[in-house]
């Protein structure tokens, strides 16, 4: 399989590009922010995603979805990134679907996701840095389990219908699907720098039935691994869109802004920096496509996924830094969009582990 988009994927990209730019451009995000919207995204837009079939992009055709892969999900996420569109697409249609796929939960939750009615959130992190450690306990209680602990940095956690949460059970990790109205569950939404809402969730002895378990008890590493691989690859694709959007906006600005009577894009120092940035973004693009293809092929994609998340973190961070700097004073104003790219990039860089986390993981895997 060649490492570029095939014709169908390219067509999907064109469709997604047009759709997202039309319905959820940066001004959509800005309007939600200015309105101090308490949901964090537009439910109407989520319905429209469903109408396009996109919420079912990874759901098997046999379950009513499009039955596509991570390359296709990435194509959509890149456009979401490019337009800074607030959307539960990554958590719900990508990471949660991937975890639930093939389990008994598919039948319960997929219809709502396909209809654009259900939103899922991922309660994975317990500290300010994503590190894989789980302190949260799930004790056997009656017919099911009692969950005790706290999670943080849960995007959409305060409005999600379904929360996927990892906890320690006696013999390992178990992944649970917890409805948002479970007793003892409290989600406190926090506004983040990028205007998105993310929750700190407390589980104070939340009781769930045995059928809340995704997959098997003590065998949560399987679905959790799928969730993380999908989430990381998806976040990488979204970062690619954020960085690409910032880079494009900056190159355009270089072509229109004059200083000392000439276009600033004619200054060689800026040209070289723009060319270097372009190179970084292209390299990141290669890494993201590679990770998505490997995931879709069913081969071991762990290292490629780590490379994609780490590399997009590095490249996009450079893109937004150069973006703000090259815009000069105007880039510092809230009125101009480039600052939003910087904020969103920071949040996504942190999500599912930052560049250092993944570089460290690669080093460990390589035995050093």
């Amino acid at each position, binding site marked *: 399989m060649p490492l570029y988009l095939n014709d169908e994927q390219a067509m999907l990209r064109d469709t997604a590009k047009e759709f997202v730019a039309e319905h959820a451009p940066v001004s959509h995000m800005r309007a939600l922010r200015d309105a101090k919207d308490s949901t964090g995204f537009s439910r109407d837009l989520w319905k429209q995603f469903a109408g396009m079939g996109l919420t079912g992009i990874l759901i098997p055709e046999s379950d009513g979805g499009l039955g596509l892969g991570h390359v296709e999900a990435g194509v959509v996420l890149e456009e979401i990134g490019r337009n800074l569109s607030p959307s539960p697409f990554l958590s719900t249609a990508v990471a949660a679907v991937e975890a639930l796929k093939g389990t008994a939960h598919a039948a319960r939750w997929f219809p709502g996701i396909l209809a654009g009615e259900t939103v899922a959130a991922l309660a994975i*992190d317990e*500290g*300010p*840095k*994503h*590190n894989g450690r789980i302190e949260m306990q799930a004790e056997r209680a009656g017919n099911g389990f009692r969950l005790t602990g706290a999670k*943080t*940095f849960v995007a959409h956690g305060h409005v999600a219908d379904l929360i996927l949460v990892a906890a320690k059970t006696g013999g390992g990790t178990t992944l649970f699907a917890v409805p948002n109205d479970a007793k003892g569950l409290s989600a406190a939404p*926090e*506004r*983040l*720098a*990028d*205007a998105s809402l*993310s929750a700190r969730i407390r589980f104070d002895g939340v009781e769930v039935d045995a059928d809340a378990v995704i997959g098997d008890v003590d065998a949560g590493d399987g679905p959790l691994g799928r969730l993380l691989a999908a989430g990381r690859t998806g976040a990488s694709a979204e970062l690619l869109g954020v960085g690409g959007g910032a880079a494009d906006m900056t190159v355009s600005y270089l072509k229109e802004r004059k*200083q*000392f009577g000439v276009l600033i894009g004619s*200054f060689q*120092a*800026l040209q070289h920096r723009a060319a270097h940035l372009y190179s970084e973004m292209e390299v990141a693009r290669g890494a993201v496509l590679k990770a998505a293809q490997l995931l879709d092929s069913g081969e071991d994609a762990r290292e490629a996924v780590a490379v994609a998340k780490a590399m997009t973190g590095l490249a996009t*961070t450079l893109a937004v*830094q150069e973006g*703000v*700097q090259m815009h*000069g*004073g105007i*880039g*510092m*104003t*809230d*009125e101009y969009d480039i*600052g*939003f790219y*910087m*904020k969103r990039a*920071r*949040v996504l860089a*942190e999500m599912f582990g*930052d560049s*250092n*986390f993944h*570089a*460290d993981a690669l080093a460990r895997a390589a035995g050093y």
Partner: protein
Amino acid sequence: MSDLEQFRAETRAWLEENCPPEMRKPMRGEKDATWGGRNPEYAHPDQKVWMDRMGARGWTVPDWPKEYGGGGLSPAETKILREELKRINARNPLNSFGISMLGPALLKYGTEEQKLEHLPKIARGEIRWCQGYSEPNAGSDLAGLATSAEDAGDHYIVNGQKVWTSYADKADWIFCLVRTDKTTKQGGISFLLFDMASEGVSTKPILLISGYSPFCETFFDNVKVPKANRVHDENKGWDVAKYLLGHEREMISGMGLGAGTDQLIEAARKGVDPILRGQIALFDVRSRAFAAMSERFIDELKAGKAHPAQPSMMKYYGTELNKTRHELLMAAGGSDALEWESEASNGGAAPRAWLRTKANSIEGGTSEIQLNIIAKRILDLPS
């Protein structure tokens, strides 16, 4: 005991007695800074106590002459005072563009009347100043400014617009570049001082990506400014501006020494991933080396040995360092440092400070401008 040793002992004793304990704690954000002025804002009452005590002694501007409200200290004494202030982690008693920018320019170019009128009020924090340099569409190209001052006998009539005026909405007076001759570029600029309460002056804050509005757009609509308020000759304002820019760059470069490093080391002590630990350690090398360079620069400046373009290097390096510091702080803080409004995050102090630093390499001349200056004026590279 030598005179200097005695001075150090006395200074230490005085500071011990007069610097309130609250003023020895690190600032938690921009709001903790003391700016003084006609309508001062204090997050803590000790800010005023500390400013007043230091101001009364002239130690807000230790090396200015006593007759202008300064401390009249020698360079060696000034250095000792700074060291003693640092020893007890004392906060800056007074943040002031009057001190860091206008003061030095007035000392060099002002008339005796101007010095006696303005400098003591600056020293005591009674009048807060802002700077009117940048204009819309002028950007880094200051010489293209268009705000006009028409000659009307004993006064000028000023019309035009400034942008990026720091705290113009909170300032009492402005020092301002205006065009008094349209036939030449840099040769037709004059340097005026006037009260922001003058009729025809209005300001509009600019909301920044940090969510703060430290800058304004400032509008002048037939503002009457006495000619006695002009510093230096008519059409010679560019000389004053250049001199003053050097001081601004010095001040901004001091950001490279920011207290943020302590926060960073603190975060590293609490535990960070091994790669970030290494990045912080290498940053700390640069940060400490820059502190040494800054000390050298200030000593050379006082001795008249510094290259006139050296402030460009300090400004460039210090501001880039400060941006890196806050990138590292954000990485150390993880998702906690992304919170924008929560109480736990002190209203998003970390991300707002991080975003604020992005302006460091833009304001007061961009990093690119500084690099141009170093290349041309220090390295003498060809055009």
